[in-house]
């Protein structure tokens, strides 16, 4: 899989990224790239700066220095409109699912669709919503409110909401956190399924080793705001370093 993606083009390129909050440095000298069709897992313990990295990548946080290129466009120099256009190609699965509480599942899915794909007819919108809900296996929940859904279901609906606009790049922020092992496994399989079906490139932020083992084509480990190790799953599993061993054993 890794050899397969080696020849393809870069979807994301981060060069020397630095981010701090006040005097506290969160990320420093982060340089990485994501190839087309690849699943890149960013591994690290809580507070290591993984979520900050992914939020810098989507433009929810501004960086102190460094460069972020997404689809060969420089995010740092993008204007509001350019950023909005760029975000149309990116799907973001939030840690908290972030479903709109005041809307039904259908309305949650229609919300980005109506704004991003403005020329769709009502029938096309309905068909698209049904299609992605079927893909995540929750078509029967279409008229439910988010408060009526379980944690796993909320995650799936949130995933459906990002998929409904056909993103080329998927960003997963702790996709399995807070879920039971069975649901976590289902979400991990769904991530793989999405990669195949929608031909997406993905960055998966996690500290869940089982999710990493299932989904990763390549792994980058972050420790104290710095890249600690980069490699494939095998190299991580055979690593003698104590910190890495503590994750994989």
């Amino acid at each position, binding site marked *: 899989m890794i050899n397969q993606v080696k020849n393809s083009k870069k979807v994301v390129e981060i060069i020397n990224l630095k981010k701090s909050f006040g005097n506290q440095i969160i990320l420093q000298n982060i340089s990485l790239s994501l190839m087309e069709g690849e699943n890149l897992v960013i591994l690290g313990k809580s507070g290591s700066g993984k979520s900050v990295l992914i*939020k810098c990548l*989507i433009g*929810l946080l501004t960086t102190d220095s460094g460069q972020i290129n997404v689809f060969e466009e420089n995010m740092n120099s993008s204007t509001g409109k350019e950023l*909005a*256009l760029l*975000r*149309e190609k*990116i799907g*973001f699965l*939030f*840690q*908290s699912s*972030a*479903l*709109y*509480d*005041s809307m039904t599942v259908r309305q949650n899915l229609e*919300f*980005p669709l109506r*704004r*991003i794909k403005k020329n769709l007819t009502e029938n096309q919108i309905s068909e698209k919503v049904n299609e992605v809900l079927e893909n995540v296996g929750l078509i029967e929940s279409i008229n439910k409110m988010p408060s009526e859904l379980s944690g796993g279901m909320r995650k799936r609906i949130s995933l459906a909401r990002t998929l409904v*606009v056909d993103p080329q790049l998927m960003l997963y922020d702790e996709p399995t956190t807070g879920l039971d092992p069975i649901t976590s496994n289902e979400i991990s399989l769904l991530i793989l399924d999405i990669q195949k079906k929608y031909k997406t490139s993905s960055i998966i932020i996690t500290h869940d080793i089982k999710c990493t083992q299932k989904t990763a084509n390549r792994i980058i480990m972050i420790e104290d705001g710095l890249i600690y190790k980069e490699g494939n799953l095998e190299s991580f599993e055979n690593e003698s370093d104590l910190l890495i061993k503590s994750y994989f054993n």
Partner: protein
Amino acid sequence: MIKKTTSTLIPSLDKAKGQIIKLSEKTIVKKEEANSFLTNVADVTLFLTKTTKETFTRDFEFKEFLRQCFEIGYKTLPLISITGTIMGLVLTIQSRPILIKFGAETLLPSMVAVSIIREMGPVITALICAGKIGSGIGAELGSMKVTEQIDAMEVSSTNPIRYLVVTRVLATTIMIPILVLYADGLGILGSWIGANIKGDVSFLLFFSRAFKHVEFIDFIPAFTKSFFFGAVIGLVGTYQGYNAGRGTESVGKAANTAVVLSSLLVIIIDMIAVQITDMIAI
């Protein structure tokens, strides 16, 4: 001699050192307070600028605006109905004995009407709305912030200021003056009910007497200040919610601050409006 001098110098040096440390700590606290104040001023200015800019953009969220008008206007009607009616009723029952004492009972309807239209109606309605609508907006946006819904909106290429803030501020600005007019009407109706508890006066007679001394010009300052009340309630509620912290505790804080601050601003705006009205003698 040297020993004596050293022994007296060391405690005084320690004292001076302690005082310098205390002073520097106080300076740091004051500096942080000043920084926090300036940051807040900058945040408010930025928020108002963004809101104003987004109000006049082409992609206005009309559907969400209508939904907010329904939420803010229609759903507040029962509360305004009760408070409006009671306001007129109580005002009548309280003022009647004094007016009888001065032989001015016939002036009761117009006195009540003038006080309701010019002052009581707008201020009481605005304070009720600050409590119900202001806290609702603060809590709703605050919980959306905490649960990353605002971020989700932003990454879906939707401007959250345009969708969440502008629609709510415009809805409060338009709906609160309408609610004020409604409360005024019910206040006069409540006053008629109050007048009939110890007397007997027909609704038509009461109504015609009520509006005998009320002129159209009486409505203008009251109606104008109601727009400002509405705008302030919407802006304070949305600002507090939109800038809530990350924890669940901040949701309650946002709702609470929205109510306290918007109520206070309503009273201050009322005072300014009364001064202006007095100056131009309306």
